């Protein structure tokens, strides 16, 4: 279905170029196309056809060459970073970036795990689909505590756009009326197990300020005709989403926004096109298009447009901008402020705790639920009362242990086998998701010497956890243990791991929005202060990181920015 729209060379001048086809790029392209603009979507990876190219989908473990494990030498040589992602396996590998082809550097003494997509659809194929609106507090906290710069937008600026994207993407969840975690336009939530219903009662009774709710996710739990008309169907609860889902049961560019954009007749797609830089006309002070290197032939070509939307992923976008140098912008396009590349953030996933739960021996569940309960943020809500700034929320899983509980035990034989045949005890797991405050020191620059095979300077990432992060980790660990005890769990264990930033795969910032052109790159319309027809509408634009999964907010921001840009183009302001 996408094939007729794939192009390679083009002399056209498009109304807009969108760089990157992940969650935000897909939304930007759809909205711009629906507004009647002629759009070129530029993607560095190869095309992926929804359904037909999900080659790992539906394969049983015994049908995979190595039962899911990626060949050691291949992983070592080409995926030494990507293999750290929980979803990296034989059936998903093709959607991940190749670390040999796309190398990056980290500053001495630092580490950053950069998990990347590399195909049409980007990380919208690989994401974990948890979908939460950010609350009003998330857009005012920079102002309140002085970390970072004030957001130029507030929750109210996004509220209609949240609704807009949710109705189209399909978000499953329960109505809760929690101010710091506003409700979405929901499809029904996934059910809680008998144990979860019990734990919800225990926690909410013992802690009147805590809520125990089902995790919200971009899955069609009970699709309506509107979604069937998109060619999408009900979630089958396989939870092998990262292999691709031909039911289109979870939101991805390929299942949702791309077909909508194509339907307008206004979209063309250039795959295998690695964007080298943005072309800039100094006299007009306008971006005129992008320079790309062909991923396969290494040939250079250009595409032209009246405006450029960068949605190349947080660090991808920063890299393109830093590499777009001119006499006017010697340190990267639209960088008169000098903050381009700075204020990189991720989420704090370093704390984990678990415990077993006795009882509910006959209770079970059928299917692999693609979400789990969460306990929304409950600290520092009315000003800072903790030793650290900002907040966190807790992600949970409750499940019955499966046969993997027998891996590390001395038992064997017929008794062992019989024992393994029954579900094991319930185990409750809690993982943290904390906010990293924006810091100027956490930054990316271009490596002075090293380049990749396309001749593009490598990104040099310099990002560390700060004292605030460590204080939060300590508190999160204490709280996780306390809550497990309150739930009645036993064999409780907890840990703070020393993973560097990156593995939460929620990297944000580096091209931040702000009110002041002196201290930010983008204004409240995601438009560069310096270059009016250059927009950044992916995670790079974020002025703070909240503690909640960001993708739904990227969708709302991208949809909003695309419509505001279309308005400006219509009014001939850009």
């Amino acid at each position, binding site marked *: 279905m996408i094939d007729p729209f794939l192009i390679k060379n083009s002399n056209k001048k498009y109304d807009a170029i969108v760089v990157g086809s992940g969650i935000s790029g897909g939304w930007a392209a759809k909205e711009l196309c629906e507004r009647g603009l002629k759009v070129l979507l530029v993607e560095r990876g190869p095309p992926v056809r929804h359904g037909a190219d999900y080659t790992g989908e539906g394969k049983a473990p015994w049908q995979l060459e190595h039962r899911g494990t990626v060949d050691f030498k291949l992983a070592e040589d080409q995926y030494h970073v990507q293999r750290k992602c929980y979803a990296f396996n034989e059936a998903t590998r093709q959607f991940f970036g190749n670390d040999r082809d796309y190398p990056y550097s980290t500053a001495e003494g630092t580490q950053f795990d950069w998990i990347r997509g590399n195909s049409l659809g980007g990380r919208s194929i690989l994401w974990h689909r948890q979908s939460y609106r950010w609350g009003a507090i998330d857009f005012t906290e920079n102002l309140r505590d002085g970390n970072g710069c004030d957001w130029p937008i507030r929750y109210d600026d996004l509220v209609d756009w949240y609704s807009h994207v949710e109705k189209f993407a399909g978000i499953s969840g329960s109505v809760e009326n929690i101010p710091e975690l506003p409700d979405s336009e929901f499809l029904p939530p996934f059910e809680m197990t008998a144990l979860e219903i019990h734990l919800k009662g225990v926690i909410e009774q013992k802690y009147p300020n805590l809520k125990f709710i089902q995790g919200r996710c971009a899955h069609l739990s009970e699709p309506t005709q509107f979604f069937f008309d998109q060619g999408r169907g009900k979630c089958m609860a396989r939870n092998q989403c990262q292999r691709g889902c031909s039911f289109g049961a979870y939101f991805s560019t390929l299942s949702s926004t791309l077909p909508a954009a194509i339907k307008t007749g206004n979209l063309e797609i250039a795959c295998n096109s690695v964007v080298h830089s943005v072309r800039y006309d100094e006299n007009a002070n306008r971006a005129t298009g992008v320079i790309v290197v062909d991923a396969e032939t290494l040939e250079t070509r250009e595409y032209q447009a009246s405006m450029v939307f960068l949605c190349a992923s947080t660090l991808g976008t920063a890299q393109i901008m830093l590499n777009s140098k001119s006499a006017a912008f010697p340190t990267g396009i639209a960088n008169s402020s000098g903050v381009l590349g700075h204020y990189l953030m991720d989420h704090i996933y370093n704390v984990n705790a678990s415990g077993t739960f006795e009882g509910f021996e006959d209770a*079970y569940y059928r299917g692999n639920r693609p979400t789990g309960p969460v306990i929304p943020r409950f600290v520092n809500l009315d000003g800072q009362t903790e030793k650290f700034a900002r907040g966190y929320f807790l992600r949970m899983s409750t499940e019955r242990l499966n*046969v993997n509980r027998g891996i590390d035990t001395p038992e064997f034989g017929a008794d062992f086998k019989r024992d393994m*045949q029954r579900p094991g005890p319930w185990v409750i797991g809690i993982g943290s998701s904390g906010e990293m405050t924006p810091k100027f020191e956490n930054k990316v620059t271009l490596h002075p010497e090293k380049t990749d095979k396309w001749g593009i300077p490598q990104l040099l990432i310099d990002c560390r956890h700060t004292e605030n992060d460590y204080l939060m980790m300590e508190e999160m660990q204490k709280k996780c243990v306390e809550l497990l005890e309150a739930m009645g769990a036993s064999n409780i264990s907890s840990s703070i791991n020393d993973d560097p930033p990156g593995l939460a795969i929620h990297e944000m910032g580096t091209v931040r929005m702000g009110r002041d052109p002196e201290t930010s790159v983008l204004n409240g319309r995601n438009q560069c202060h310096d270059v009016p027809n250059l927009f950044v509408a992916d995670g790079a634009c974020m002025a703070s990181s909240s503690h909640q999964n960001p993708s739904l907010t990227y969708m709302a921001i991208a949809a909003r920015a695309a419509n505001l840009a279309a308005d400006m183009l219509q009014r001939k302001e850009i």
Partner: protein
Amino acid sequence: MAKSRIPEPPQTMEPVPVRTGMSRRQLIRSLAYSCLGLVTADVIAGNPLGERKPGGPVREGQILSESQMKLLRALVETIIPQTDTPGAAATDTHGFIDDQLANCTAPDEAKQFIAGLDQFAQAVNTQWGDEFANLKATDQQAAVSALAGSGVPFEKLPESFFRQLKSLTVIGYYSSEAGASQELVYLPIPGGYRASFTVADNGGKSFSPHTY
């Protein structure tokens, strides 16, 4: 940074890491129990069905020799024997392990495991006067029990050898077609999620592990 060379157990839920096995301390405690001879009588006595031994010729592996494959086949079958469902030998779990060692394991780690296999073979020969595959089921069980507890005659084998053998056997068997779909319940397309479902509804069985 080297990742664990033993294949990770397939994750079962969202990326909230959950301890699916025992803690290190628990493991050591259990091992201590076996060293003290507190292994359940049933394991030692063996299940009558456990007397059945895998026979027939064995092919040379990708990295393992014919005799190493023969030994490994008998070992995995001792760990997960045939009962009313196939055991680890019939599901070619030794073939799975050979494939993992040849293709999915760091060369050093594979070498170490193979050395452990040879050391094990030799110690068995010295102690029982025959190769492991030819021993009676009860002797095979006694040997594996001693191995799990680092007892006589395996005190010199690295502790990691049994752990690796056990992990690979469990992962290999339960990801085989019979292990996943006969011994356990395998649902390729559940059709939706149901929370009101009991163990009895599932015939008392566990679902096969979920992999992303």
